[in-house]
């Protein structure tokens, strides 16, 4: 490790942490600045993600129209001063729909990733900690889940559950957990080699205490990285499923759904209907992937390779 990297790590310095909140903010700003200097592309990803979040949260302030508002006499208007991204075949403002679409993507993405990582941590840490027959059984089930192509199994699950945002979060979360649990299990096993785990056991700490107090905090970096890269993958999967008609149902402005359905035949006359939602998906996923990549390099270089899960 280079010397400037050691100085960067603010978490280990107790004097800074103890001395109250103003310094904490200063540390946060300093470490963000260091991160930006070391990983400019990652910082760019962070800016994109921030923009996406702002768009999602303040959609109703940013968008000039409601997502399902039909503007009289404005069918398939080309992009211009009034309609920045044009209007669709039903006379709805594409820009407003793209802005509202961000909140759909962010809701599904964060919901799915939260569920996936809680499940993955639960399965991964216990599987790695207890080992033995329990581990073998759990890993065979994970194997079976993973031998299905992602899109095929998620499509089957969505057909069972029916379209809808909550169902989408459930399906993506459960499926994402399978892959994540494998990685967390690996990290858990390597953390368990440390003598402090043995020391805790010698002092009489129970299973639960060891897992929660000693293992979980030490695999947290892995979980954060998995979550960031998983967010991009979840948004991509949501859009693919909505594109196929198994995701978020209309009139909700999911980016994937905007590219399919009844509007498809009108795209030859109004290509902007196809261009902007796709560009929004790409930019959002790009942002998460860039940020996730940089975070991984900084927090845990062992996880290199892999990357976002390609769907479709």
């Amino acid at each position, binding site marked *: 490790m280079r010397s400037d990297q050691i100085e960067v790590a603010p978490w280990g310095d107790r004097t800074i942490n103890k001395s109250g909140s103003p310094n904490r903010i200063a540390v946060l700003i300093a470490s963000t600045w260091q991160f930006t200097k070391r990983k400019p*592309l990652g910082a760019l990803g962070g800016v994109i993600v921030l923009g996406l979040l702002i768009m999602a949260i303040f959609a109703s302030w940013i968008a000039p129209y409601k997502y399902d508002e039909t503007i009289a006499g404005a069918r398939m208007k080309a992009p211009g001063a009034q309609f920045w991204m044009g209007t669709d075949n039903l006379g709805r403002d594409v820009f407003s729909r793209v802005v509202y679409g961000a909140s759909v993507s962010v809701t599904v993405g964060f919901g799915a990733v939260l569920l996936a990582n809680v499940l993955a941590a639960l399965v991964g840490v216990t599987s790695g900690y207890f080992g033995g027959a329990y581990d073998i059984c759990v890993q*065979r*089930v994970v*194997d*079976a*889940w993973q*031998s*299905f*192509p*992602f*899109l*095929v*199994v998620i*499509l*089957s*699950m969505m*057909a*069972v559950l*029916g379209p809808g945002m909550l169902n989408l979060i459930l399906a993506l979360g459960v499926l994402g957990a399978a892959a994540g649990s494998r990685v967390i299990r690996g990290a858990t096993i390597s953390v368990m080699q440390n003598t402090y785990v043995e020391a805790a056991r010698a002092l009489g700490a129970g299973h639960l205490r060891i897992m929660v107090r000693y293992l979980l905090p030490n695999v947290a970096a892995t979980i954060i990285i998995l979550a960031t890269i998983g967010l*991009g993958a979840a948004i*991509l999967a949501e*859009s*693919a499923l909505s*594109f*196929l008609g198994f995701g978020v149902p209309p009139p909700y402005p999911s980016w*994937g759904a905007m*590219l399919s359905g009844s509007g*498809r035949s009108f*795209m*030859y006359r109004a*290509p902007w209907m*196809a*261009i902007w*939602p*796709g560009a929004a*998906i*790409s*930019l959002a*996923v*790009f942002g998460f*992937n*860039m940020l996730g*990549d940089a975070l991984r390099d900084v927090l845990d270089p062992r996880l*290199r*390779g*892999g*990357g*976002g*899960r*390609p*769907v*479709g």
Partner: protein
Amino acid sequence: MKRYVFRRLLVAIPSLLIASLIVFSLPRLLPGDVVQLMLEEKAYGKDLEDLRAKLGLNRPMHIQYVEWLGQVVRGDLGESLWTRRPVLEELARRLPISLELGMMALAFAVVIAVPIGVLAAIRQDTLADYAMRSMAILGLSVPGFWIATLCVLLPAIWWGWSPPIQFTAFSANPWAHFAQFLLPAFILGIASAAAIMRLTRGTLLEVLRQDYVRTAWAKGMRERVVVLKHSLKNAMIPVVTVLGIQVAQILGGTVIFESIFGLPGMGRFLFDAINQRDYPVIQGVNLLIVSVVVLMNLLVDAFYAFLDPRIRY
């Protein structure tokens, strides 16, 4: 080697069994009863119970599962509830189309990704490296169905050209048959290419720092020999592993691409079957896909020995 493959097959059996249980139970949980649908849309039977009995859907779930498993082992995947045609026969017709699409996509991916990955590794931290890495992340981020949509849409608007929607059989016109796969296979391969490129770069960088590579340099070997002969082969082992995963992803992608480009393959078969709640078809396609993936992973393991002679089974 033979013993190893046999042992690997034995390990695969429990996974396949669990997968078969998932395959079997998932479509049965579909809301909306196929029997109801069939009665409404096509007057198949006199009443619901009559039709259910005819389809064997009125018996307990576990008995249906065991019966189904028995049939599968004997090579009988049942027949489509809608067309009444044997699923196996239909799959035999459609699998080659999906395999052709998938193989071409994988070939595109490898041919594009490996050279770029090698180049990015030996020019680490140069402008070219940054550009290629950013392109790779972009490739992972852009949804394939969007590129496919634009590839159908924009040429049609600009030049009035659109890809053929009618499927051409190999026997009818070999060149047209081949050509219709080019565009979908290329787009399908982009995401895999990005993943493979990143991995190739990463592992090659690791191998290039090994002592034996330094020895090769010290002996005065040319860069080409050091990189391609001494390093690349060892760097390819994790890449080959990922190929197995990529096959699964590409097979999943066929669902979208066969629908957009009008190819009558397995993915489209599955998509239509899900929409029509055609249990035997959904089960058949899923089972076939899982088997292909498990087989691919077995092949990948066997291929290791070729790449790394230190691995003995």
